[in-house]
């Protein structure tokens, strides 16, 4: 049990490693082996390791353990060992200290450990930092310590009388270490330091950290340039996207870090100046204006817009953003005083020589903003710039630096009063679109109802309040009505090209009394023109716009429309949407009736359309590389160009859906036709678990053998079921043992998505695959893959026929609904020669036969006549009441299924109404 250890001849090792006795034993080991030698190294390492363990245990369980540590001044043993500079021991020592500082909970113990400069002497000890292991433990030791910093503990680290702050000084030496883990730790530690609120420390820190901050911004410059170079040259393939992702992550991490530093008052001012003068102005703004000097290091506009928007999405420091945005929105090129020059391996910031041709262009105001708008002009050929331009506009809305006044001074529509609600974290972007939409709708139907009413005849009466609110804008509109759309539509402001700067100032001065801030925002009409370019573009033949760009454009337009109350803008936009929608429809319409798979394409794309793809975490970087035009790139369709007929049609469908939605939102109409729903004789579709009355229905007994795991069983199961179909659904039921004639639904699938194949080897077998409908969350996928074995060949044939016809009819009905939603005529080449058989049954949703409560209203003759009017309506299973069925049978003519005894319908209908 007791084991002798090394030279500590008289020491006996107690059994329990978590006890005071064990610590006493270890203390003995340390005192016995003050001088580290080859022989006792291992024992000492183990002792140091065990000491950390016991102390933590003692901290939580037995106060006398730490007392012993204090009484025996064990910390001084540690220091003596450290000074001997043996790598193995120092690794363990740093690890032990790290564990102690990280885990000790009693603050009195922690304070003791920090007291009397022991920690400072450890921090300043010259460890062999070239040794990776030492470095790793050293830096994490510093990091652990930095998390203990607060206004009370800072005095352990910072001595203001002697001007000593080893933690800061040592950490600053490591900021440029070649390992990224170290650099990241340094960032963390510095952030923890500057966040401590202590005046004298702050003064010291600012004096010492300046150079670091400057280097930090330069590293952002270097990263940006490196990424830009990569983006210029790389093909859009998976491997490159992954490499790019790594670079983007680094860059965004850095921006986040800078953003966090800017939140710290102590360094904000200094850092803000560096960011502006070293990054934002000489790199980003320069790249968004015409080149002035051939030596300037510039980014592609796409990269510059991307970095710009990332910066806006992350950083919320008011002064920085305000300075940057006002330059961007109003200034001319003269604001650029410096530029980056490549100097062999490095970049240097140099003043721009005034000899460089500034020329006429240089005097032009708003040159950077104009550059943004230009991005949209060429969107039909390449939408990358437009995409990132949109991203930038979107980021300007999302920015949290409270620069709303600045933006509205630039005729940039923002919500002032509700700035709180426009601040939405990026991870909630999915809800954003819906929220915007809801607001847009409420706007268009309430206080701004006039415009809507005019177009939709909803008929909201204008109240007096409306009159007051719309008083001024209306006057303005009247005067401007005949203006060229390219001129700002708002005579309160002048043409931005001429007096942007002064306009900004005067507008900013006048802001509080200005009506435009209280009722609605003005909007630079050129912005709308730019956004319209994208909508226009998707209507053009051979355009190269990707669906994601249009989606983002719609999002931005909605955002703007929430605040802009300008009838002309609405009218123009509505007109444009309608025009483009028609244009797209003309293309799509050709294929609705002819293409067999149109139904699937439409449904898939509708599901895709309902997904919100605007998530800059993912698309932000994928779109930087040149647009891919092939599925081989591994990109999903909405992020690339279409390849081939099918993809082109699918893209057109998505375009159509977006434009249609935008148009409806503009007019305040809801969409009642999409998503397409075909009703099952006015009753709800059957669901699994429902109990249905199958009295007098066509039932086919079969054995279901799943081929793949599914909701009803796993491969190899043999399930006795009955196959039923209604107008739209394939249903597998199991008889309800408690009530004759009733059955419980075990599986439901849509006939339209059912494929049937015979079996060449066995004539009693059908192979059935049913696919589930695509949805926002899930793509089209098989929900049932099974072998159905019937009693005999004839029954198998009957099933096959019924399913085949059912599929045809169901698809016809669905296509019909799509046609009427789109407004194109439905021409069925194989005009229904036969209607599906009647398979009447009755549903009681979710109820066991014994406790039937739910009733379905079926007596309304309005339903029957409405349904019978539809061409496909002849196939309605007329179970609910015999007169309904006969009514529907009448007009739809021949081919109605097997007649049925009306008495069954009425008599079996009785128990439902109990």
């Amino acid at each position, binding site marked *: 049990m007791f084991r002798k250890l090394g030279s500590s001849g008289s020491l006996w090792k*107690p059994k329990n490693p978590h006890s005071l*006795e064990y610590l*006493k034993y270890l203390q*003995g080991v340390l005192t*016995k082996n003050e001088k580290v030698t080859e022989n006792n190294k291992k024992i000492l390492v183990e002792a140091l390791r065990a000491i950390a363990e016991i102390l933590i245990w003692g901290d939580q369980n037995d106060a*006398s353990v730490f007392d012993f540590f204090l*009484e025996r001044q064990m910390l001084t043993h540690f220091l003596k060992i450290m000074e001997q500079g043996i790598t193995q021991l120092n690794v363990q020592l740093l690890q032990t200290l790290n564990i102690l500082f990280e885990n000790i909970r009693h603050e009195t113990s922690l304070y*003791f450990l920090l007291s009397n400069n022991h920690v400072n002497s450890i921090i300043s000890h010259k460890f062999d930092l070239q040794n990776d292991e030492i470095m790793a433990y050293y830096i994490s030791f510093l990091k652990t310590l930095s998390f203990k910093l607060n*206004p009370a503990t800072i005095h352990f680290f910072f001595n203001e009388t002697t001007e000593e702050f080893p933690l800061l000084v040592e950490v600053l030496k490591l900021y440029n270490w070649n390992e990224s883990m170290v650099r990241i730790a340094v960032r963390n530690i510095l952030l923890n330091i500057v966040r401590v609120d202590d005046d004298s420390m702050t003064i010291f820190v600012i004096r010492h950290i300046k150079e670091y901050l400057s280097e930090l911004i330069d590293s952002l410059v270097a990263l940006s340039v490196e990424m830009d170079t990569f983006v210029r040259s790389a093909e859009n393939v998976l491997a490159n996207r992954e490499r790019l992702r790594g670079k983007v992550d680094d860059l965004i991490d850095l921006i986040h870090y800078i953003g966090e530093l800017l939140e710290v008052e102590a360094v904000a001012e200094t850092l803000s100046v560096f960011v502006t003068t070293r990054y934002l102005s000489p790199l980003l703004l320069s790249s968004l204006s015409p080149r002035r000097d051939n030596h300037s290091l510039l980014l592609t506009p796409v990269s510059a817009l991307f970095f710009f928007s990332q910066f806006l999405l992350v950083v919320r420091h008011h002064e920085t953003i305000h300075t940057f945005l006002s330059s961007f929105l109003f200034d001319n090129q003269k604001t650029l005083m410096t530029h980056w020059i490549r100097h062999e391996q490095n970049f240097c910031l140099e003043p721009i020589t005034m000899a460089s041709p500034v020329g006429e262009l240089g005097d032009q105001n708003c040159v950077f903003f104009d550059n943004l708008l230009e991005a949209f002009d060429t969107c039909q050929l390449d939408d990358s710039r437009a995409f990132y331009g949109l991203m930038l506009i979107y980021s300007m809305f999302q920015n949290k630096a409270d620069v709303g006044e600045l933006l509205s001074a630039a005729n940039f529509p923002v919500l002032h009063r509700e700035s709180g609600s426009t601040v939405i974290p990026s991870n909630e972007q999915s809800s954003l679109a819906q929220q915007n939409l809801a607001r847009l709708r409420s706007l268009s139907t309430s206080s701004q109802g006039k415009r809507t009413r005019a177009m939709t005849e909803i008929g909201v009466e204008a109240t007096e309040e409306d009159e007051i609110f719309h008083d001024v804008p209306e006057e303005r509109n009247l005067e401007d009505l005949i203006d060229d759309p390219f001129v700002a539509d708002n005579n309160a402001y002048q043409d931005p090209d001429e007096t942007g700067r002064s306009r900004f100032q005067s507008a900013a001065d006048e802001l509080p009394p200005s009506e435009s801030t209280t009722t609605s925002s003005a909007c630079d009409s050129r912005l709308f023109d730019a956004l319209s370019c994208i909508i226009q573009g998707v209507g053009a033949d051979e355009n190269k716009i990707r669906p994601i760009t249009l989606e983002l454009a719609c999002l931005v337009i909605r955002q703007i429309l929430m605040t802009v109350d300008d009838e002309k803008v609405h009218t123009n936009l509505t007109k444009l949407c309608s025009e483009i929608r028609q244009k797209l429809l003309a293309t799509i319409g050709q294929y609705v009736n002819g293409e067999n798979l149109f139904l699937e394409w439409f449904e898939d794309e509708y599901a895709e359309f309902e997904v919100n793809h605007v998530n800059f975490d993912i698309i932000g970087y994928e779109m930087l590389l040149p647009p891919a035009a092939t599925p081989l790139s591994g990109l999903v369709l909405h992020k690339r160009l279409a390849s081939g007929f099918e993809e082109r049609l699918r893209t057109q469908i998505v375009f159509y859906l977006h434009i249609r939605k935008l148009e409806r939102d503009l007019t305040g109409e809801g969409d009642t036709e999409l998503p397409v729903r075909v009703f099952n004789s006015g009753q709800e579709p059957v669901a699994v678990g429902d109990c249905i009355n199958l009295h007098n229905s066509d039932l086919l007994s079969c054995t279901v053998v799943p081929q793949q795991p599914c909701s009803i069983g796993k491969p190899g199961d043999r399930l006795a079921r009955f196959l039923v179909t209604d107008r739209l659904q394939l249903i597998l039921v199991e008889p309800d043992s408690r009530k004759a004639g009733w059955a419980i639904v075990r599986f439901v699938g849509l006939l339209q998505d059912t494929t049937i194949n015979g079996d060449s080897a066995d004539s009693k077998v059908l192979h059935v695959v049913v696919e589930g409908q695509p949805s926002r969350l899930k793509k089209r996928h098989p929900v049932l893959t099974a072998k159905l074995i019937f009693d005999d060949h004839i029954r198998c044939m009957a099933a096959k026929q019924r399913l085949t016809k059912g599929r045809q009819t169901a698809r016809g009905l669905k296509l019909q609904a799509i046609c009427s939603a789109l407004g194109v005529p439905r021409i069925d080449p194989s005009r229904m020669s036969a209607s599906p058989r009647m398979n009447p049954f009755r549903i009681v949703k979710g109820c066991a036969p014994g406790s039937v409560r739910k009733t379905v209203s079926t007596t309304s003759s309005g339903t029957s006549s409405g349904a019978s009017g539809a061409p496909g309506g002849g196939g309605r299973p007329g179970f609910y009441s015999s007169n309904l069925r006969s009514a529907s049978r009448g007009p739809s003519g021949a081919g109605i299924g097997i007649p049925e005894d009306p008495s069954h319908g009425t008599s079996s209908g009785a128990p439902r109404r109990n």
Partner: protein
Amino acid sequence: MESNFIGDDYGPLFHYQYRLIVIGDSTVGKSSLLRYFTEGKMAEISDPTVGVDFYARMIELRPGYRVKLQLWDTAGQEKFRSITKSYYRNSVGVLAIYDITNRESFEHVENWVKEAAQNLGGPSPGKCVFQLVGTKCDMEAQRQVNYEEGEYFAKYHKMKFIETSSRSGDNVNEAFHMIAQEIQNRVDSGELRPVDGWEGLKTGIMRSQSVCLSEGSFPTGDNQGACGC
């Protein structure tokens, strides 16, 4: 290096363990007093204490009856006030120190005592023992605070009073004996008692029983220093 006598680890140790806190203005000589007490000799002039320091020593109150004193030395500087505050809770006695050659340090004693009284812990914080100590009594020439003033202050606040010199060693041991005895008296009378979760006062008997199971004593290097008495 470590020469204070703590006691034979594995013998029947001590009857009680008292934890005391030493407070007072910066530079009044708290650390010197403690070092003289634990090391038995005058200490070099030292830097101001950064944060807290810890000392321990065994004393014999009467023959065969030993108590262990654990002593928290605290920084007098204002900037460490929030740190030192957390050490009152687990103390049973408070030594409030002033420098007889520094009037201001005497005037601040009242605040120190007040802060201590507010932060003491244990089952009956009101019963914890305070003692006033004037240091540097060898420097009679520079005296700014009369003995009587200290005595009066102590009386008024119902605490004991002593003047010491960490240069000559006068009254150093007595000062600690005095407070230990007073604590002992209150323990004997039941006014103070050890409770779980309070480190101010602990019995030593229980510990010795469990520790006795281990091996006999072993020489622990520099650990056999001065005798307690």
